[in-house]
Structure formats: C-alpha cells, structure tokens
C-alpha cells in the first residue's frame, strides 16, 4: 500500500488535539503552556530543518559530509549533556564528554553499520544518519542521568569517598561505588524498555518502517539491532564520559573540583 502523505492542512488539524492537554495544564495552574508553545515551535522548526537537510544528505550521500554531520550532532549533544546534567560549561567538562560521546558513536556505528549490516557504501546516509541519530539521542538521555548521578552523588557523599581514600584506596577504587551507581541509573531505563518492547510500546523506528511499507519482520530485525546498539552505546558513552571527565575534574589531592557543579 502507498504511504499516505500528509498535507500541511492535515498537520495543522493534528495540532487541534493539543487544546485538550493545554486546557488541563491551564486549569491546574501548571504554568506549562508557555513551555508547550515554545516546545511545539522548536519541534516544528527543528524537524523542518531536519527534513530539508536529510533530503540534501540523502541526495549527496558522501561519507565525509555524513561524518561532518555526525560531528555536529555530537557537538550539540555535548553541550546539551553538560547543561542538562547541571554541570558548568568548562573545558574540563566539554572536551571529555565530547570525546566520550564521539568515541562511543564511532565504535557503535562502525560495528553495526559496517560489520553487522555491511553497508554497500561506506557510511551510506540512508542508514548512518537515522541510526546514529537514534543511538545519539539515547546516549544523550543516559549521559545526562549517569553524569548527573555520578557528580552530584559524589558531592553529596563527599565523606564516603574521602573515607575510602583515607583507608588507602586509589582514586579509581574510591570512585568505583559512585561509577557503579551512575551506570545502574543510566542503564536501567534502556533495560526496562528492552524488556517491555513490543508489549507496552511499538518503537518509533519500527513504526516508521512499517508505515513506509516495510514488512513487519524486516522492521523487527532492525529494531532488535537498534536496541542492542542503543544499549551498548549508552553504557559505553556514560562509562567513557565518567572516565574521561575524571581526568580533568579532580585536583591533585584527589578531591573533586566542585566548581564544575551548577548547584
């Protein structure tokens, strides 16, 4: 069956349903309607932009251009991770998180795109851009949870960390319980969605493939692969994020440089 294209009028009609949540949010004085308006405007503008550049990227389909676009996505994710983790934008946070996210994405992309899927063309845009985008989006969410949990837990429980150091632990040994907790917190949401996928939700990628005419059996194969890629990518980027930032956010006394924390 041909996919039904949506006219702009139909999309406009779709927005009418927002009156319902907007009314509830207004009735209960949540103050969220202004945010809702901004979020809607941003969503439309960003997706319009994405639509146009994807058209261009797919048409041009050059590995260098695709790589450059991935770099831009990683850079935007880097700033977003720092801001949403309540850390300050400093060289000691921006550089390591950028490095960790980029390295995580390179490992996952090369493995899944080139080894597993075996693209006929290096970094073909049709696969590389959406898969990288999905992995990166999830890495961002996990990084925010993991990095925030790690640094704020460490600051809140400074004496526990100091106690371990005073018992003779190396910095790595004393940080181990904090890293473990950050990894648990960041990996849990992805694990939960892996465990309920198909029962509670039909994921976006699979839905998209089915809508565009793919067989559901092909769609689930890609969905399985993408879930594995997302899980591996998120754990890898959180771990590398903590590992790399640790090299720059501690003083020679092994104490955390708390000036990186916003609160």
């Amino acid at each position, binding site marked *: 069956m041909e996919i039904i294209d949506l006219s702009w009028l139909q999309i406009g009609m779709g927005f009418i349903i927002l009156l319902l949540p907007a009314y509830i949010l207004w009735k209960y004085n949540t103050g969220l309607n202004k945010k809702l308006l901004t979020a809607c405007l941003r969503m439309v503008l960003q997706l319009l932009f994405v639509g146009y550049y994807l058209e261009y990227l797919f048409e041009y389909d050059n590995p260098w251009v695709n790589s450059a676009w991935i770099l831009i996505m990683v850079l935007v994710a880097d700033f977003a991770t720092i801001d949403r983790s309540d850390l300050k934008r400093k060289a000691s946070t921006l550089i390591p998180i950028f490095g960790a996210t980029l390295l995580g994405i390179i490992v996952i992309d090369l493995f899944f795109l080139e080894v597993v899927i075996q693209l006929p063309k290096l970094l073909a845009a049709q696969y590389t851009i959406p898969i990288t985008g999905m992995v990166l989006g999830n890495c961002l969410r996990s990084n925010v949870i993991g990095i925030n949990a790690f640094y704020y837990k460490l600051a809140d429980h400074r004496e*526990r960390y*100091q106690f371990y150091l005073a*018992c*003779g632990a190396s910095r790595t040994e004393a940080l181990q319980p904090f890293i473990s907790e950050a990894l648990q917190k960041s990996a849990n949401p992805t694990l939960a969605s892996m465990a309920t996928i198909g029962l509670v939700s039909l994921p976006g990628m699979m839905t998209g493939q089915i809508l565009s005419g793919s067989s559901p059996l092909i769609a689930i194969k890609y969905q399985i692969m993408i879930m594995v890629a997302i899980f591996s990518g998120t754990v890898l980027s959180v771990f590398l994020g903590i590992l790399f930032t640790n090299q720059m956010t501690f003083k020679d*006394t092994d104490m955390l440089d708390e000036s990186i924390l916003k609160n």
Partner: protein
Amino acid sequence: MANQHDIIFQHVSFSFGDEIVLNNLSFNIKTGCHTLIKGESGSGKSTILKLLLGFYHPDEGRIRWKDNTIHPQEIRKQTAWLPQDLDLGSHSVSKVMEKPFEFSCNQKKATTEHQKIEILNQLGLPKNILDKPFRTLSTGQRQRVGIAICYLLDKPILLLDEPTSALDSKSKRHIANLLLSNKAKTIISTSHDPSWVKKADYIIEI
C-alpha cells in the same frame, strides 16, 4: 628536635574561600602517642585531619611527614580515619565492613566473619547487626562500626574525629580499651569529651 617519624605542621594557614579556618598554626605530632586536638566547634579541628590526609593543600606553610613534604596517596596507605558522621551507604554492615579490604593496599589484611563479630561484640554491638543496612543504624552504632573498620584495618596512624560524640559511657570505655591499648599506633583525635581528653598523651589547643 622532632624525631624522624614526627608529623610536623609548620606555619600552616588554610581558608575555605574567604573564611579563614587555620592561621599560622605550628605543632609536632609524635609517633606512638595519642595526640588530641582541642578547640571550639568550627575552630578547624576536622580540617587539620583532612589536611593531614592530603585532601587539601595548605594556603601557606607546609605539613611534613617523615621529614618529607606530605604525599597524600602514600600517607593514606598508612592511615585509617573515622569522620564525625560516617556515611557508608545502604549496603549491609557486613558488606560495608568488607569494602575497605577490597582496596589493593589492604587486600592482604582481608577480614573474616569471625573477626567482624568479635570486634563488634567488643564494641557492644550484636552479631545480627551485620545483616542490617548501614543507613538504618543510629549515629552511635555507625560510629562504632567505623571504629571497628579502623581497628581491623590495623594501620599505623589512626585519625579519629570526635570518636565518642555519639557514645554512652560504657561504649566510650570499650573504644578506649580497643584503640588506645596498642602503643605502637599514632593516634590523632579531636574531641570535646573530657573522658576522652584525659586519655591523650599530648593536647594541642587551637
């Protein structure tokens, strides 16, 4: 003249931001003795212990250990520290007591269940406390578990920050017997408690 193993504070000043905590402080600590640091709340007693552990650098002056400027990672291999309010998370007391023995410098000292029970008994804590989550213990129980860890680690230097602040008189006697009987150890403590102050070989008033 200070002997080779003394810990020496030389004209040490330290501030947290604009707040001056220590100003031009000098003293010596002899090994094998119990030195008590006495002073009012907020006078910087706990900060002295943290400076000794190398968690902070003095703004001015220096701290020497065995005739050398302090090297934090090295000195910490020889210390056990009891902070005022011990926070060791939500694992069971048994796990919490095992944790320090997982660190590479303590692995040879691995503690047994029997040792844990024995030391806890000496500190007036029942055996079944080992299975309780550490965070559910009272302040006094946490303090005694901390003392048990410090004792089992068997380090040459013990830094005790208000070790009796949450203990009854019977428990105070227990910990004094346990910690102060070994004359080979260097003990540096802070306290307001007259019964503990009496047990010091040297008192430094700040």
